């Protein structure tokens, strides 16, 4: 429902996994394979010499330091900020607009999401088969989509609960004169386990 970039999530997990895998495999190889250990002992000081050479070739004024340190710190900062943005972009995608008609000569009509949310919440609140319900609106690829989450009491048929919510949605359609795409989520959860069951036929 939300606009979380799931591909990015998988990419972050994949990169972290590959880094750990390569580092772990290298450690095992250094510990267990003599040729690899010898190779490491030969090559590592050379690499160190090369990097040290870069640091000497890039002096920062007459401070005696290399400006590569600034570059390294800046790269670390930029990547940190990108990761922070990645974290903060999770779970977003709510919208306040439900319907907006094209403007006419007389003006424009915008229906706010809270209209549908409150109407549905009102219809759901009195239901004995539900422990709780929540309605929210997301923008999915430019379309406003209603999300109706209901928690059923123990033993309630999911099909009946689904039908009941659909009836409410159809009534909403009649009221709005337009059909808003909707997702219904029927869940259990902690509150359902602790709350009592209701009398059912």
């Amino acid at each position, binding site marked *: *429902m*939300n606009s*979380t970039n799931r591909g*990015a*999530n*998988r*990419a*972050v*997990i*994949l990169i*972290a*996994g590959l880094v*750990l*895998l*390569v580092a*772990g*495999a*290298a*450690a*095992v190889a*250094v*510990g267990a394979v003599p040729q690899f*250990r010898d190779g*490491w*002992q030969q090559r590592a000081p050379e690499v160190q010499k090369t990097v040290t050479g870069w640091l000497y070739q890039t002096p920062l004024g007459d401070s005696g*330091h290399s400006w590569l*340190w600034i570059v*390294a*710190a800046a790269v*670390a900062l930029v990547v*940190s900020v990108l*990761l922070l943005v*990645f*974290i903060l972009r*999770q779970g977003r995608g709510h919208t306040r607009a439900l319907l907006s008609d094209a403007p006419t000569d007389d003006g424009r009509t915008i229906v706010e999401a809270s209209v549908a949310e409150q109407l549905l919440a009102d219809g759901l609140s009195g239901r004995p088969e539900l422990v709780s319900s929540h309605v929210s609106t997301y923008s*999915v690829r430019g379309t406003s*989509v209603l999300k109706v989450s209901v928690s*059923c009491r*123990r*033993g*309630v*048929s*999911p*099909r009946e*609960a*689904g*039908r009941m*919510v*659909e009836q409410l*949605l159809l009534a909403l359609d009649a009221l709005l004169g*337009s*059909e808003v*795409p909707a*997702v*219904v*989520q*029927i*869940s259990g*959860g902690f509150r*359902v386990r602790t709350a009592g069951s209701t009398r059912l036929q």
Partner: protein
Amino acid sequence: MSDTVMKPAAAGGSAGSGRLYRRLLRRETHSPKSGLAIVLAVIAILMLVYVGTECVLRLLGQPALLVAPARLAQAVIDAPTYPAGALIAGGIVAAVIGVALVIGAFGGGRRARHTLPGSRAATVVDNEVIASALARHAAKAAHASADNTMVSVSHRTAVVRLTPTSGRPVDRDAVVRAVDEQLASYEVKPGIRSRVIIREHGKVGA
């Protein structure tokens, strides 16, 4: 069977609405893996901020917080001098976590949910709710208490475990019939097969 997508929504038209509902159902029945990704991102941020701080301290000629970058590099270069056992053990732990993450990155991440057919909305239902509804009907058919009926629903199967009340024999066929009837009426996708297990020994006073 795909009547979740039959009725076009006002916004978008038939084909667009079908695609929208398919996308919504897929996103509702699969995990975004946000939790794991966020934890890894936080660890990466902490490490990067630490490295950045050490770089700046080095530049300012201040003493390092923990380890100067040069000594950190030296520690990596000196890897062959560490005890082989520790290297191998640590490497295996890191590699196993790495493999688990790679599998997690490519894995399906399916949630314990099923989809229900509906003409108006895309509906998903937690397996827990299906199990609880089945438990009520199985208990009723067996004349047992709902508290002595355990149902676990997975992607393809529902296992009903019934402990009968002592002295009241359970009609197994009636339970199977009741459970199958319920499952058929829910029309969940993917379909669920049932398995009924009735304990040999009953429970007194249940």
